[in-house]
């Protein structure tokens, strides 16, 4: 099955990837998409993950057509 993976902000810049379509087997957890897309790069401890625009835990199993996002801690609002 096929999922769309997106990276944001500093993560996107550092990895040089904004978005990527990827073919994965059924039962793949969200966190595993990271190692598939950026092998050898350790998953940052403070990274946040979303599936279809909702926060999810790293163990969440992806489904066909999901949009998965990895991003750094958020810094909206003001100081």
């Amino acid at each position, binding site marked *: 099955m096929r999922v769309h993976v*997106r990276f*944001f*902000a*500093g993560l996107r*810049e550092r990895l040089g990837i904004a978005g990527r379509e990827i073919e994965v087997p059924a039962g793949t957890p969200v966190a595993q998409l990271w190692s598939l897309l950026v092998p050898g790069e350790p998953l940052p401890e403070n990274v*946040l993950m*979303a599936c279809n*625009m*909702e*926060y999810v835990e790293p163990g969440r199993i992806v489904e066909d057509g999901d949009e998965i*996002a990895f*991003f*750094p*801690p*958020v*810094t*909206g*609002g*003001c*100081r």
Partner: protein
Amino acid sequence: MTVRILDTAFDPWSVLGQYRPASAADGQFGATAVFVGSMRDFNEGDAVASMFLEHYPGMTENYLQKIIDEAMRRWTLTDCLIVHRVGELSPGQPIVLVAVWSAHRKAAFDASRYLMEELKSKAPFWKKEQLENSSRWVEHNTSG
């Protein structure tokens, strides 16, 4: 219950002057609590020339709507409004406007603060600061 993401500068007081709180005749609400966060020209000891605010279109709006829904569940409110800038900002420009209307002031005060803390801690926005000769992503937010 309105969420607006704007990619150009806005004047929070004009926005509020023009906003009509949902389903509320003038005499029905007694309290309005507002918070405006603006870009400062210094951070962590450095002068900041400008700032770029990135967001996750779709998820950001969803998340802001979700915290408004939660505030409306927790308190008796007439209406909530959140406006947040994205894109290129200059020092002094408003970044965020949170406004809450309610019959009693306690609910308005509590809910406006709740919305700001929730927004800061989990709404998908990221700041990149342009210093004199370099730029950097802001790594962590200040606590409330």
